[in-house]
């Protein structure tokens, strides 16, 4: 039974902030199959194409038949906790700070035995459900959950190390003018965020939903124009030290590619709002988030980007926009690497066309802004890194995995 976590008290300014440390991060290339699974919230094991054996840990040949045909596939998650061990004085700095720490051995119903981190409600000899999670080093680790939901389950101390749960965290949502931004604010408040700072650019321009946003409890509207370096720096000077989760809800969608556009001002706006805005935010907020990755219950935990799935494959009908999104995707990988030493996750939420005015003429299916908001909160609670929301995004992902050239031709048809 987990005691619910309490809202953290104000920090004692006489105490030094605990700096982030990393759990062991070395992995073999083969075991990045688990990293991929963890990033997407899937449970995948290597499965021998020749004899059908599931195996663990990652290896290059099947332990049963020596076949090299060992693809990662989605595997059954159920197992039994064979034994548990509580580490009281680990040699590793990261775990020593977090001791006591429970790990265990789980016999999977599909065959292999896993060394795993344990949720506090897992009992020796009892059934467990497994997942792979990204730990504070960004690498995949196995995690055993109790079979059924238990009280205050998500408040488990070891589980919270694997996630970026908004509960009691302080969030910056960069653009409250958009419907997506407003839905994200509402979803984060429902998820228990203690305060949501909401950026509003050009506050002299009224916007839809403004009154409701201003009336929300625990929501603070702040001036933020992410295209303006100084505006971003000024906000970071005020609240940079208390942003635990940053959700970039910038939305600047314009149709058109290259040849049907006159001049470059629209392209420039796209770059300013998406790519440069991202750069400004990262430079202003990134380093303090990285430094605060181990700062207690409300440590800095995650940076969320909402990206078009056409960042992965250009959709010429929105070609220049796709390119700006591709730039942001590339930058997100840079940020992810740079934030990793702080244990701060970078979550990329890929969507197809949203159900907003700028995709008005695009036929359905379109993604409801509320679905994006739910996906973000879910990703934070589950500790995911790559999320695909809606049918279009999922379909593009699958088609890219099958044949990227076909995707290029078909999107450009």
């Amino acid at each position, binding site marked *: 039974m987990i005691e619910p976590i309490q809202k953290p008290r104000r920090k004692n300014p006489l105490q030094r902030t605990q700096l982030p440390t990393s759990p062991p991060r070395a992995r073999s290339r083969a075991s990045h199959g688990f990293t991929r699974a963890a990033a997407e919230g899937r449970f995948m094991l290597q499965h021998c194409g020749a004899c059908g054996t599931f195996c663990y840990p990652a290896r290059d040949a099947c332990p049963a038949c020596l076949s090299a045909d060992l693809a990662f596939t989605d595997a059954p998650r159920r197992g039994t906790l064979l034994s548990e061990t509580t580490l009281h004085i680990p040699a590793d700095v990261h775990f020593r700070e977090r001791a006591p720490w429970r790990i265990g051995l789980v016999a999977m119903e599909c065959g292999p035995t896993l060394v795993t981190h344990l949720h506090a409600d897992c009992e020796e000899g009892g059934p467990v459900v497994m997942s792979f999670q990204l730990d504070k080093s960004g690498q995949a680790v196995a995690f055993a959950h109790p079979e059924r939901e238990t009280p205050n389950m998500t408040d488990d101390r070891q589980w919270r190390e694997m996630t970026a749960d908004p509960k009691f965290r302080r969030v910056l949502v960069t653009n409250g003018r958009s419907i997506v931004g407003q839905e994200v604010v509402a979803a984060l408040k429902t998820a228990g965020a203690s305060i949501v700072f909401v950026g509003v650019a050009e*506050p*002299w*321009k*009224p916007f839809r939903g403004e009154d409701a946003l201003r009336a929300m409890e625990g929501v603070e509207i702040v001036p933020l*124009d992410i295209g*303006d*370096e*100084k*505006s971003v720096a000024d906000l970071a000077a005020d609240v940079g030290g208390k942003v635990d989760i940053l959700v970039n809800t910038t939305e600047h969608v314009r149709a058109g590619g290259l040849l049907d556009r006159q001049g470059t*001002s629209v392209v420039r706006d796209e770059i300013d709002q998406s790519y440069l805005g991202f750069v400004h935010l990262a430079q202003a907020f990134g380093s303090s988030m990285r430094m605060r990755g181990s700062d207690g219950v409300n440590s800095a935990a995650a940076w969320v980007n909402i990206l078009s799935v056409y960042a992965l494959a250009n959709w010429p009908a929105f070609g220049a926009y796709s390119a700006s999104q591709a730039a942001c995707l590339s930058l997100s990988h840079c940020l992810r690497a740079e934030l990793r030493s702080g244990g701060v996750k970078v979550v990329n939420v890929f969507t197809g066309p949203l159900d907003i005015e700028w995709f008005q003429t695009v036929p359905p299916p379109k993604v409801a802004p509320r679905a994006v908001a739910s996906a973000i909160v879910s990703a934070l609670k589950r500790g995911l890194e790559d999320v695909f929301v809606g049918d279009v995004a999922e379909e593009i992902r699958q088609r890219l995995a099958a044949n990227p050239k076909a995707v290029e031709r078909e999107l450009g048809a």
Partner: protein
Amino acid sequence: MDSNSLMQFAGAVASGAVRVVDLTFTLSPDFPVIVLPPEFGQAAPVRIQQISRYDANGPAWYWNNLTFGEHTGTHFDAPIHWFTGKDLPNNAVDTLPVRDMIAPACVIDCSTQAAKDADFLLTIPVVEAWEESHGRIPERHWVLLRTDWSKKGWRDYANLKDDGAHTPGPNAAVMRWLVEERGVIGFGTETIGTDAGQAGHLDPPYPAHHFLHGGGRYGLQCLCNLDQLPPTGAVIVAAPLKIQNGSGSPLRVLALVPGQG
């Protein structure tokens, strides 16, 4: 004019006998800019990007890169800005006659009317009433419309509603009349444009732009401190940046007014 008079003038500026009033808002990223429907090209907002500030990027010096549209902040409109002035000679900020950059002004105070009605329109009778008190508007003078709009907070200043901006300005008849019957050198306002917020619904649309620039005259907007100017007798110094074929430019607008001493 002999050089003595010019030196006398310089002395009067130095002594305060001629007072210099700054009619300019600070050029900053926060200042409202004209809002067009989003499917049109947009004025780039003011951006001030630091190159260095006595730091690793330049240890002994501070400087910035700037970007902004020609029509941001307190700015000047040249005739080439509007289709009606597109074929006129010397119609851009780099070619317009420099002597036009210094000219006297008539200031028409409509602050009372504008306080009551955000959509207040300046009309010929209003100007005629002003002329009753202050005399006929001489040729090659600026006409500046004082509304005290510059004293508002920026949301009220832009005053955007779901049917567009509601800010005061001139009607079509008075603009044509000022250009053709009074020969003004230009028209200046405190609001975001020389035209009223709802001027797109006038005939012709945006009459200040239409008639001023069609007649080779100039516009000044986003002015402040007009309440410090006398109805007549102020001299305006408005020299836009010499931008190649530029349609306008942010600028420092100064008014010289009789002071103490």
